[in-house]
């Protein structure tokens, strides 16, 4: 049963990722990325990480992708006419590099495959909000506060970068 769910979610994730990089329409790419994130959230559920599955849907598929779609709509981009134009060598190199790196990762994975751990039995309790919050607010409290500073800095920086330069428009001050 579990294996069918995994195969279904994995096929969905890979297919939507491929569709994302091959789609000419940017909005379709964004929506396929949402599908990919949702199926990865399903895989997280299989791994007993309930809290992170919910966070993945809320923060990634919700907030971040809405931001992406908002910017795509704001820029009002046309569809790309040709995905693969005349520069052929670039694509060949990209695919070769991808295949080489995938082969390298899978080969190194095959080398250690009998040393990898088995599924731990106490995992049923480790992925819940209580267990995560318990560690997050004790051992990782400082890092957590630094994350808050990082997010504040990111918001201020984004406003600084994206705003119009109002000073250039006139000397009203």
């Amino acid at each position, binding site marked *: 049963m579990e294996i069918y769910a995994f195969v279904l979610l994995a096929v969905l994730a890979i297919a939507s990722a491929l569709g994302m990089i091959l789609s000419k329409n940017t909005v379709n790419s964004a929506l396929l990325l949402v599908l990919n994130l949702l199926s990865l959230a399903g895989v997280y559920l299989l791994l007993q990480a309930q809290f992170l599955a919910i966070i993945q849907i809320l923060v990634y598929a919700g907030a*971040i992708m809405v931001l992406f779609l908002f910017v795509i709509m*704001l820029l009002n981009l046309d569809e790309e006419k040709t995905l693969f134009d005349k520069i052929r060598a670039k694509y060949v190199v990209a695919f070769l590099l991808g295949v080489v790196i995938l082969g390298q990762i899978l080969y190194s994975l095959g080398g250690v495959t009998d040393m990898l751990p088995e599924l731990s039995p106490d995992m049923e309790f480790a992925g819940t909000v209580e267990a995560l919050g318990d560690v997050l607010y004790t051992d990782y409290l400082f890092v957590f506060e630094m994350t808050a500073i990082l997010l504040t800095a990111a918001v201020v920086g984004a406003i600084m*970068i994206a705003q119009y330069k109002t000073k250039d428009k006139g000397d009203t001050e």
Partner: protein
Amino acid sequence: MIEIDWYLALSAIIFTIGMIGVLIRRNAIVIFMCVELMLNAVNLSLIAFSAYHGDVTGQILVFFSLAVAAAEAVIGLAIILAIFRNNLSVDITKVNLLRW
């Protein structure tokens, strides 16, 4: 019962798809979404190791990685907006101010 290898292989495949996407696409927004895809692939392998070791630290790491990804998305989209305002295009082959 699924071995951890399958989760790691799925993570590697999604990471590679994201990498190929970064290399072949010219639309800056799609390149940015491919980077998000690669981040997610790494998150998946972190969660897989966390589950199979029975150690919650990997999931804490994914939590922080999500926060950093949110910050990165905000800054990146702001930069793309600024590029669009200057070039009226998000085609990265047309961003050649520093290219020689």
